[in-house]
């Protein structure tokens, strides 16, 4: 009937179609974007031709007397001639481009020029309208809410009719999976079937939205967007602990956080006024990209990569824009520039982070948020108070001291190397003869400051034995030496207690030359967790200098000093945030002149190295610098060397600080965003290369969209506020579209990742706008949005498709039926667990390892007990070898932000469901429960099992098939009871007291079969 109507329409009114007014966005943009923009589009810098067809101004420009388009005048429009030309030199697109315009496309372009060649802003860049009219249709008995009015209006246009209403059983199955990712329980189905009230459907939706399962399902969807992973990714792919962020997401959905707040906290929770711990935790979202540790990598290359990932994720997740296209050049299709890209990236680059995480230590890459438990929080407060109390009780030494010549006490002296001779590659240690320093022949003995010294090769270290001077951050210490640099060093390691530079994130303490200046530091993780000071003046070249690094054990930059030639050097504070230990990472001894994969002190001279495990007084250091001169004592010298009260006080303080450290050490931390005090400089990177800095940029939003109200000193919070503006053209549309896709299988914009010119235009633009406006007006309430969809008549249709309807609308764009679709990977597994009763209903916590992780490309040991039976949202995600079951069933790999999944059907999926231990075990446990419930009543078992997997009762034919299945299997297992016993052993759950193994095995196969049945794994 429908078909006949269409034919009549087409045959009856051919002229109507031909004279239809050309709509630029609908008709013309897709053609010129796809076939013209590459060479005549917005990326003017990278195209040969001067002609651009991306705006009226450009398209009508006079180029040497030729105009591409003269509105209304085909003959004068060069475009017309070029697209109609057969001459290979003239024709457009060029033959070399291997693109062609169809005749219909040429007609559209001509007609568009004739009708005036109007341009329109790309639909998705127009502000979200304040109000959208709901179509008023005459025959509207079908409508249940506004959604249906829009759908029906379009169906009428297409001369299609909606399908009939689906059964209550199918509807509750559909909605329960869509909203919770789990099947409805039989009792829930029964209650719904019995509920004859007009509110029955709404009751179900309201109930579902309140469940934890809903929060988990919504989280599962968001993890793809957030590229969530429990490991760092790239090549080495170590584990990292970020599940606390995943739990933040679950909680956000559980409390139905408004979507604008949900976005704001993830983008900029740290910048909210009086940000709570949870709000800061939300920003982990920006750090979930892969991170690199491979030795020898260039840190800046990867730091830039991380920032890029944040921008791309922000673009895809919230704006539906393909920002990545503008990383190297202006966008080929959309009005986005390279400057826009780097202005956006400036919002995300302003944190104190490293391009590589640490290979030799398990430090969490900075910036981090500490996540103390309640008990730890209390302990920490107490420990902090104890330290502060003691610090305020500093004893005093007399102002005036008898000015005698200072003698340097040998107390605390651990090392003294005079470098007089190198015997068998050893330098004698005068402080401890048992502990000489070792080196090799490349470090030469040469005339030094006093007698001989050493000339360092830069590739060879002078190392003290294991454990020498392995100071904690609570231990005051002092290192002094004579040194001479042969040239201005960009970077050179003078001494260090530290295994490596980037490979250990400089864990330990060190004295470097950086750009000719001395730089002293104590480091937990470079750059974010350390204290560092640097001298203001450069160290003289080619002259012996006496240098000392002096530290008081306070974990503060103010407690760190550099002395040059006996005088306290003027320094600047570079970093002052040390909250964790500096020991560890290997090489627990002090060494000179070289460090793994760092720049050594090439051709540097050293002499008279002293190491003390106490803070030296300034007077003592002065004496070391001038042993022949008289150095008078002073109050501070007295305090550090003679004052007994001070000595006692220092010991108490050290104990208090150690207690504090012990508490801090046990506190978990997680990567978050924290802006630097001074905004970091940001640049356009030429062709996207980290080495090619071009113009400076400041944080800004893309020019084609609304500007920030106050563009000066903008930060991520300004960006978040801009994003959640009620008029923002993209934010609400992109979100609504994704949730529409979740409920209806296909977005109103079927390219949810691209709302730009190359994306697909919306099938129902007014509906998208209406829903978006409604969403914003209702405070970005997801419950409101989802309820609207779930309760629509559109959602309530049958999914069966007639061959006619399939022919008319194969992709189901117009929704004259409900979509059918394989349920998501997580749901397939969770369904099996739920039906069998094995599913653990615990919410949150560390990720777990189901059976299949043992069969992963990067295998890890499976969990025991409940860890095997938790919802798939908790499955440990290893980037370089994700859960093979999830992968086989089409889950996203979570390498980068993804907003949709491709659905496939492969035999490998069947093997997983047929043979995977998780599924076979679940089927057995389910079978056991059926027997417990129904005893010997086969018919009851068949019906019950079928209902569990399909939510409906089997028909006669289905019962007949299942009956044959059961008898065949039973006969076979009876004939071979040993096989039954073997089969029943699958999985960790033990089945006890098997009365009738062949029967249990046969029912196990039955349940397994139903688990593989199309209706159990397909949303219909």
């Amino acid at each position, binding site marked *: 009937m429908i078909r006949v109507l269409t034919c009549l329409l087409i045959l009856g009114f051919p002229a109507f179609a031909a004279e239809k007014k050309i709509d630029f966005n609908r008709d013309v943009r897709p053609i010129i974007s796809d076939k013209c923009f590459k060479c005549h589009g917005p990326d003017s810098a990278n195209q040969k031709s001067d002609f651009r067809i991306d705006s009226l101004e450009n398209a009508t420009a006079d180029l040497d007397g030729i105009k591409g388009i003269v509105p209304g005048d085909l003959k004068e429009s060069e475009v017309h001639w070029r697209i109609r030309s057969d001459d290979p030199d003239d024709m457009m697109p060029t033959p070399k481009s291997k693109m062609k315009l169809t005749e219909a496309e040429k007609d559209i372009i001509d007609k568009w020029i004739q009708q005036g060649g109007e341009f329109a802003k790309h639909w998705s860049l127009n502000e979200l309208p304040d109000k959208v009219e709901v179509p008023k249709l005459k025959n509207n008995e079908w409508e249940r809410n506004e959604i249906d009015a829009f759908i029906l209006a379009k169906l009428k246009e297409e001369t299609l009719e909606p399908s009939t209403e689906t059964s209550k059983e199918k509807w509750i199955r559909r909605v329960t999976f869509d909203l919770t990712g789990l099947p409805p329980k039989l009792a829930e189905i029964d209650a719904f079937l019995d509920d004859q009230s007009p509110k029955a459907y709404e009751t179900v939706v309201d109930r579902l939205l309140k469940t934890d399962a809903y929060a988990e399902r919504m989280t599962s969807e968001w993890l793809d967007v957030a590229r969530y992973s429990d490991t760092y990714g790239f090549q080495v792919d170590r584990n990292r602990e970020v599940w606390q962020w995943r739990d933040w997401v679950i909680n956000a959905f559980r409390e139905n956080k408004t979507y604008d707040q949900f976005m704001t906290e993830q983008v900029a929770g740290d910048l909210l006024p009086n940000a709570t711990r949870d709000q800061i935790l939300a920003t982990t979202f920006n750090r979930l990209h892969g991170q690199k540790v*491979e030795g020898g990598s260039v840190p800046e290359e990867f730091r830039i990569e991380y920032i890029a990932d944040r921008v791309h994720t922000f673009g895809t997740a919230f704006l539906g824009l393909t920002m990545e296209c503008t990383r190297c050049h202006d966008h080929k299709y959309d009005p986005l520039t390279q400057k826009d890209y780097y202005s956006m990236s400036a919002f995300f680059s302003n944190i104190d982070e490293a391009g590589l995480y640490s290979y030799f230590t398990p430090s969490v890459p900075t910036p981090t948020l500490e996540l103390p438990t309640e008990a730890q929080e209390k302990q920490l407060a107490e420990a902090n108070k104890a330290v502060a109390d003691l610090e305020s009780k500093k004893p005093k030494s007399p102002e005036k001291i008898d000015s005698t010549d200072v003698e340097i006490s040998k107390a605390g002296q651990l090392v003294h190397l005079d470098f007089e001779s190198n015997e068998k590659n050893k330098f004698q240690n005068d402080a401890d003869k048992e502990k000489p320093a070792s080196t090799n022949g490349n470090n030469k003995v040469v005339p030094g400051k006093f007698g001989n010294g050493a000339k360092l090769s830069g590739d060879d270290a002078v190392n003290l034995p294991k454990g020498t001077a392995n100071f904690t951050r609570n231990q005051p210490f002092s290192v002094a030496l004579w040194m001479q640099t042969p040239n201005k060093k960009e970077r050179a390691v003078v001494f260090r207690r530290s295994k490596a530079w980037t490979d250990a994130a400089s864990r330990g303490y060190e004295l470097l030359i950086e750009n000719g200046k001395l730089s002293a530091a104590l480091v937990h993780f470079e750059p974010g967790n350390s204290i560092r000071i640097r001298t203001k003046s450069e160290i003289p070249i080619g002259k012996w200098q006496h240098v000392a690094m002096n530290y008081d054990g306070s974990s503060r930059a103010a407690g760190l000093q550099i002395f040059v030639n006996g005088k306290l050097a003027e320094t600047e504070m570079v970093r002052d945030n040390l909250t964790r230990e500096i020991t560890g990472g290997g090489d627990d001894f002090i060494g000179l002149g070289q460090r793994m994969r760092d720049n050594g002190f090439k051709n540097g001279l050293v002499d008279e190295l002293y190491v003390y495990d106490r803070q030296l007084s300034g007077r003592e250091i002065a004496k070391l610098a001038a042993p022949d001169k008289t150095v008078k004592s002073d109050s501070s010298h007295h305090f550090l060397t003679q004052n007994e009260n001070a000595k006692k006080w220092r010991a108490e303080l050290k104990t208090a600080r150690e207690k504090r450290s012990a508490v801090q050490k046990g506190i978990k931390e997680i990567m978050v965003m924290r802006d630097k005090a001074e905004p970091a400089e940001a640049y356009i990177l030429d062709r996207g290369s980290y080495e090619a800095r071009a113009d400076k940029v400041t944080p800004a939003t893309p020019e084609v969209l609304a500007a920030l109200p106050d563009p000066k000193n903008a930060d991520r919070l300004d960006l978040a506020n801009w994003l959640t503006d009620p008029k923002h053209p993209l934010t609400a549309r992109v979100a609504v579209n994704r949730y529409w896709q979740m409920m209806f299988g296909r977005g109103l914009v079927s390219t949810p990742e691209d709302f730009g010119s190359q994306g697909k235009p919306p099938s129902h633009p007014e509906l998208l706008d209406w829903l978006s406006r409604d969403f914003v007006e209702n405070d970005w309430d997801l419950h409101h949005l989802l309820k609207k969809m779930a309760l629509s008549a559109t959602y309530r249709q049958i999914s069966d498709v007639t061959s006619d309807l399939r022919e008319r609308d194969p992709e189901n764009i117009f929704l004259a039926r409900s979509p059918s679709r394989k349920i998501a990977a997580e749901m397939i597994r969770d369904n099996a667990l739920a039906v069998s009763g094995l599913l653990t209903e615990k919410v949150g916590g560390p990720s777990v390892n189901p059976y299949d992780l043992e069969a992963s490309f990067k295998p890890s040991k499976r969990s025991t007990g409940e860890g095997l039976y938790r919802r798939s949202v908790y499955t440990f995600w290893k980037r370089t070898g994700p859960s093979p079951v999830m992968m086989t069933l089409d889950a996203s790999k979570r390498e980068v932000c993804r907003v949709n999944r491709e659905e496939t059907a492969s035999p490998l999926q069947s093997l997983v469901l047929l043979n995977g231990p998780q599924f076979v075990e679940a089927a057995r446990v389910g079978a056991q429960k059926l027997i417990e419930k129904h005893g010997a009543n086969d018919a009851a078992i068949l019906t019950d099992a079928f209902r569990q997997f399909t939510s409906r009762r089997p028909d006669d034919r289905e019962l007949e098939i299942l009956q044959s299945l059961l008898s065949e299997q039973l006969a076979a297992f009876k004939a071979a009871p040993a096989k039954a016993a073997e089969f029943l052993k699958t999985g960790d759950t033990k089945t006890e007291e098997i009365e009738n193994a062949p029967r249990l095995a046969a029912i196990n196969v039955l349940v397994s079969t139903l688990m593989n049945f199309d209706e159990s794994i397909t949303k219909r």
Partner: protein
Amino acid sequence: MNTTPPICSGFESPLGVSRRQALGQFGGGLGGIALANLMQGKPGSPDLNGGLHHKAKTKRVIYMFQSGGPSQIDLYDHKQRLIDETGQELPDSVRQGQRLTGMSGNQASLPLVGSPFKFAQHGECGHMMSELLPHTSKIADDMAIIKSMNTEAINHGPGVTFMQTGSQFAGRPSMGSWLNYGLGTMNENLPSFVVLVTKGKGGQPLVSRLWGSGFLPGKNDGVRFRPDKDAVLYLNSPNGIDPSSRRKMLDRLNDLHEHQLEKSGDTELETRIAQYEMAYRMQASIPEVTAVDKEPESTFKLYGEDAKTPGTFAANCLMARRLAEKGVQFIQLYHPGWDHHGGLPGGIKRQTKETDQASAALVTDLKQRGMLEDTLVIWGGEFGRTNYCQGKFNGTNFGRDHHPRCFTKWMAGGGIKGGVSHGETDDYSYNVVNDGVHIHDFHATILHLLGIDHERLNFRYQGRYFRLTDVHGHVVKPILT
């Protein structure tokens, strides 16, 4: 050779058929969807010998990837001058400010080291090869050796990713996935893109995305065959379930699906039925093809005793031949362990002992079975190694760091001109001086041999068309027949 960094504007009409497009095109026809869903079309037109755009010269590829970066200097790229100048500093005029890795980049001294291994000419063509390759040198006349390979990556992660996907960063489809997408399958009982990784080798870690489908539909993922009972994930029925029991179960499952199909007319159910039938056939066909132990003793003589141990490189070479015989189109081997930063002389000896005989055997074996003419065999890694010593050079022992500017790969078989040596490096094996072959060129050449124009095999994602060669790539014609 590419001198400019890539800008992304590859753009052609899309060729492959996505599920959505398939639905659009074959929506009405029964079975159309089943076909589109499961098989991604048949190989290209018979007139083109399986090719898509032009006549294919090869039907399948066996790619022996040598992960870690084998030293070109000690295997194929003989340099007398380097040997003569051993111990001297790498001249700045040679390095030309090139970036080094953080592993040797901060070394105060970069001493040159020539190869301590003897080189000689082999075959009629006279390929120079080192004494480390006694077996490979015997197939010299079948090999086209490319000495001018080059890349931009200086570390393994980006390097291998670049070599296998055409981009240094994660997210793009692997070469095998592109072929799968373009050519479909030749045997519906086996996956068309199979991955074999040598078992138990340390070395630089490999990651599964190297055979991933990126943004292509997931069915184009490579399928890794493991060297154990379950060659693919959960291939075998659970204990206690024999084939007849499984058959009976599937018959009833089919009954349910057919009944459903009758009721609803939904052709997706045909897909479902086909999917389970194919799984059933795979349960038989995969154990059959992986039963390497059924080979006669002469095979093990050829490939070496190692081939008897599942998961060794030799066993994987043999497996590759068996898969090729059954119509598997792209067989990707991975053999890690070439990352010789230190102790190179000993390390490379062990490494070549594991690989030399089997690599040569594979070519020989294919040849004697008449399959070499339509099988492309490739050998090589992600980059080369430096001509200078990483760390201390004590006169005998040394290591080499990663080197992107030149390295060697070889190809043999379908469409390849045996005995050709292509490209030239300078006297220090540091820079390419003639006929550079970039990774994109390498990819373009492989696609060309399979009858694919690399500029026309593309996929639209996020609003633009992507292809394996990005916007680059030239077919390396001199090595082709």
